[in-house]
């Protein structure tokens, strides 16, 4: 319109500078707002990184593709708030790499399933969902309670997450294996575990070895339980 196209077509240097300028504008518009992304995530009391057993449970959740049927995101819709509880906030998935919001809602939303059912129920339901909920479409995951949990790489997993910004302390990582075993054993002394990871729920376990079901149940039982929405500070942070 204002600049003759011919100038760019005939001058390689001008074309280079012009292209660079155009791409820079696109880049800046896309990238610069991300520098302030921190300011859009509310900082809410109670959010903590996953305990080692919960973390492994989360890995199993991802491996088995639970997110293909279950969302973990209570939307700001009246009916969802009515059924599942307070809508999800960004801070609740700040330590999820990647987040498990999901998009298919074939099964119920799991964002606040923690504490809704007993541990025993979760074990039985994972084994055979139809035995408890006849109309359920969920496949059977009986093998989870028969498969020993791989625990020898827990330190590596936590260290990796630390490089992604999850604030595991050296203390957390040094005690990872002990914490994992303590949470999977109902008879173990849990004071230290709960000190590091408040509200961590013990899995029932089978008394012999830590299974994948133990990890998954520990993960499910903490979902959505960390934030106390009755807290006035939390109310104030709502945008």
């Amino acid at each position, binding site marked *: 319109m204002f600049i003759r196209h011919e100038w760019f077509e005939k001058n390689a240097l001008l074309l280079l500078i012009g292209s660079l300028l155009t791409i820079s504008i696109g880049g800046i518009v896309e990238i610069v707002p991300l520098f*302030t992304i921190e*300011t*859009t995530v509310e900082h809410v009391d109670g959010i903590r990184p996953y305990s080692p057993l919960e973390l492994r449970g989360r890995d199993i959740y991802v491996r088995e593709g639970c997110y293909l049927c279950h969302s973990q995101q209570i939307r700001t819709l009246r009916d969802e708030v009515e059924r599942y509880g307070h809508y999800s906030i960004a801070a609740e998935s700040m330590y999820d790499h990647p987040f498990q919001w999901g998009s298919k809602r074939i099964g119920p939303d799991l964002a606040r399933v923690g504490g809704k059912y007993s541990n025993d129920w979760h074990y039985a339901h994972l084994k055979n969902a139809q035995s408890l909920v*006849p109309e359920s479409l969920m496949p059977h995951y009986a093998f989870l309670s028969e498969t020993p949990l791989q625990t020898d790489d827990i330190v590596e997993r936590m260290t990796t997450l630390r490089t992604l910004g999850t604030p595991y302390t050296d203390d957390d990582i040094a005690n990872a294996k002990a914490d994992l075993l303590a949470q999977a054993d109902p008879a173990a002394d849990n004071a230290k575990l709960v000190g590091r990871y408040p509200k961590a729920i013990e899995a029932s376990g089978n008394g012999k070895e830590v299974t994948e079901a133990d990890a998954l149940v520990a993960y499910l039982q903490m979902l959505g339980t960390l934030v106390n929405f009755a807290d006035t500070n939390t109310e104030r942070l709502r945008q």
Partner: protein
Amino acid sequence: MPTKIEKDAVSGRDTTGHEWDGIKELDTPLPKWWLYTFYACIGIAFVIFFLYPSIPYGPGYWHGVMGYSQRKMVDAEVAKLTAIRKVSLDKIGSLSFEQIKADPQLLEVAMTDGRITFAENCQPCHGAGGGGHIGYPALAAGSWLWGGTLDDIQQTVTHGIRSGDDDARNSAMPHFGADGLLKPAEIQQVADFVWSTFYGHKTEGQDVSAGAKIFAENCIACHGENGEGNRVVGAPRLNSHIHLYGDARETIVAQVTLPRQGVMPNWNHRLDPATIKAVTLYVHALGGGE
């Protein structure tokens, strides 16, 4: 490159002046309607940027001049719903069960609320209609572990069983087998006794006196002399046809060896007191209420 702009004989349009091996390019402009729609879209984008929450910057983000917030909207919608329900829920919350039952209209509201709450929260364990499952008590059967009056049910729903709540119903059957309180042979004997005497599987000529002795020494404190159970400590009634963990003899052995201690969550962190009363009325009316 551009040679010279000339008029195309067929279309009557100018060419761009580009030519490759004798092929020339027509300089056809974009249709006007398309071009102006495109400009309008860019303009509208800026208007929407201005009106609605859009771009993050510095300490926050642009909130938009409309004050649009999905969170505020859902809060308002829930508040509206709460206000409508408040009329009935306040009454349900403040009146006694007897008073609610005396008001047919209010009772209908409470039962409806109870039914919906039950379906979402209780049914996964207790089954549709309170039919129960192995390990999850039937509510319609009248065989209560902790009591089946309205007040009992309300207490159980509110605080749960072995839930960790301060007022939860709590009891723990000793691990007779796992902790070595009884020898495996003794467990078999006491299972024989319970199986034949209370479960009604008497075998001619079977001597269960050894089991009866063990039962008298270890079990009657909670389960009662005649296996009638004790609701104060949630000890199940044994002399009935409804058994929490199944009807087989092996379940008696398993339960004496290493008892399962069922957990019911406390619902006071998820349901408000009036809704708990409503679901109590519903559960009570399922068929087993006392």
